[in-house]
């Protein structure tokens, strides 16, 4: 903050506003700390929200030219769009929503930087710090915006979730990246006074790269991509903070960047694949899906009826549900809870085992099960769940595939070799609810389905679970 020609009152003094900013970021951090457990989380989120509200008010206190009409229009439209969306979005659609939010943040950062560029271009060249941060914020913002839109389209199934590849993809992406770096260099050297057309070209290249870098990434890798885009947006906001010299933007951007980065790394670890492989491996594209070594096509696969499975479940002492993306697609979370209630009524212990990358974003399954009122204590992480399987009578796999594939433990040639999995095969009986024998997103055969203790229950996950519930009830 430089001089303050209009500051006449204490409320508008720079120090006072700065103190409000300090309170704001302290509240945001304290609010994030609340997310350590579900009991403190609700308040935590509200504390962070309060912090943000204070920050907005403080900013509006600053002496300004008073373009209040513009501010009012923007905020009003934002509220009209944002509030109903937040209230109505289905929990199964959270990955899409988060993707859109990531994109919106990136776009806002890019818009601010574009505006700043036109101010620079219109004469008064700026210093190097502003130029560097401006061009970085524009590039990262555009990348995040375009990438998030593609991620949204894939998650919303407006386009195929399978990887889209073409020959020379990496080379094209590399060339675009080089062009971006070249233009960015030019921008910095001229301290932001490069021709408008060149800057527009830079923005277009960044948008294009965002699109092209998400296209080849398959649906099952979406948890990584969403986390990464989250961290990009945080970074773009932090860099925007350098550009306009705002401490609060830097701090909040850094927090989000750290969160996104941490989640990206955790997701990568949960798949045992380096980030480069996720981003550039076009995992699960049509070309690489030869049948895994050792398994020669369809073998003995036992298909069971709902009645048989219901008996098995009803007379078990411990059952573990293993939900996956299939449960989200079928919107089966409430049916699953109803089945669990029936079983618990009969004295069966019911637990849920959740793989870190089950679903399309970190924590996706947990939110769906929480929505259907499954108690938090029954949701087990992979580390807690795996020791339980050996004492489990029935593991009921609901629309999960690759995260239960034992080939990840033993078959060195398997593309998912080394990925930590849920050891459902150690349970006495395994029931797999699945629409068909089509392989999962990764296009890998799952030897679990051919094991002697496994039975398949084909059909839509919701319909199958409902059938099980009524069959258990009838016993």
């Amino acid at each position, binding site marked *: 903050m430089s001089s303050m020609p209009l500051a006449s009152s204490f409320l508008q003094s720079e120090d006072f506003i700065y103190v409000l900013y300090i309170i704001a970021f302290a509240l945001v951090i304290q609010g994030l700390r609340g997310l350590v457990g579900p009991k403190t989380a609700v308040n935590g989120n509200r504390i962070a929200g309060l912090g943000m509200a204070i920050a907005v008010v403080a900013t509006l206190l600053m002496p300004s030219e008073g373009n209040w009409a513009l501010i009012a229009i923007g905020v009003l439209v934002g509220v009209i769009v944002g509030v109903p969306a937040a209230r109505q979005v289905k929990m199964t659609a959270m990955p899409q929503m988060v993707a859109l939010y990531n994109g919106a943040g990136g776009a806002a950062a890019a818009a601010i930087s574009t505006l700043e560029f036109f101010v620079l271009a219109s004469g008064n060249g700026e210093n190097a710090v502003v130029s560097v941060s401006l061009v970085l914020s524009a590039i990262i913002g555009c990348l995040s915006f375009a990438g998030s839109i593609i991620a949204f389209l894939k998650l919303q199934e407006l386009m195929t979730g399978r990887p889209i590849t073409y020959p020379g993809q990496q080379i094209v992406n590399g060339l675009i990246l080089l062009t971006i770096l070249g233009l960015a260099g030019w921008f910095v050297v001229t301290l932001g006074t490069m021709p408008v057309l060149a800057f527009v070209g830079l923005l277009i290249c960044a948008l294009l790269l965002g699109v092209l870098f998400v296209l080849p990434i398959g649906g099952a890798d979406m948890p990584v991509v969403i986390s990464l885009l989250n961290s990009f947006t945080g970074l773009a906001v932090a860099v925007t903070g350098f550009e306009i010299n705002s401490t609060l933007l830097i701090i909040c951007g850094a927090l989000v960047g750290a969160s996104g980065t941490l989640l990206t790394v955790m997701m990568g670890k949960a798949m045992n694949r380096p980030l480069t492989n996720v981003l550039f491996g076009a995992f699960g594209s049509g070309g690489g899906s030869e049948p895994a070594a050792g398994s020669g096509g369809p073998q003995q696969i036992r298909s069971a009826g709902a009645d048989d499975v219901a008996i098995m479940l009803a007379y078990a002492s411990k059952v573990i549900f293993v939900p996956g993306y299939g449960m989200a697609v079928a919107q089966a979370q409430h049916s699953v809870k109803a089945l669990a209630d029936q079983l618990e009524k009969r004295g069966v212990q019911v637990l849920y085992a959740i793989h870190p990358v089950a679903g399309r974003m*970190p924590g996706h399954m947990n939110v769906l099960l929480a929505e259907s009122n499954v108690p938090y204590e029954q949701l087990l992480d992979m580390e807690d769940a795996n020791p339980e399987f050996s004492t489990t009578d029935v593991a009921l796999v609901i629309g999960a595939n690759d995260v239960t594939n034992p080939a990840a433990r033993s078959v060195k040639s398997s593309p998912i070799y080394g990925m930590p999995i849920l050891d459902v095969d150690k349970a006495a009986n395994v029931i797999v609810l699945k629409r068909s024998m089509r392989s999962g997103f990764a296009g890998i055969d799952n030897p679990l389905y051919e094991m002697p203790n496994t039975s398949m229950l084909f059909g839509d996950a919701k319909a199958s679970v409902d059938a099980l519930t009524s069959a258990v009830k009838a016993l």
Partner: protein
Amino acid sequence: MILASVLTTNLAILVLAGFVGFIVISKIPNTLHTPLMSGTNAIHGVVLLGALLLIGLPEIGFPKLDAFSQALLVIAVIFGTINIVGGFLVTDRMLEMFKTKPKPQEQGEQEPAGKDGKA
């Protein structure tokens, strides 16, 4: 005495905030990762402040905003607002679901088990 420049001060803030972020967020359990992401969506909505600062600050030495610049800023305000308002609301909605349900009005004693205590 050597005074740090604005740039180095800001860099120090960035690095410290990054470390704080890593430490705080590494304690958040997998179960709450989706609300964490939507919550961080709301936090990066702070970019709204950038737009608000630019929209009417003569002190940065801005010339009058033309229609195009105004449009850009209004877009940034809209997206920032959506991020903040939508992000916090949807996170709140989600986190309410994680609360143990039997008595929605009175939490506290009623809630069984749970390993986390308030620090």
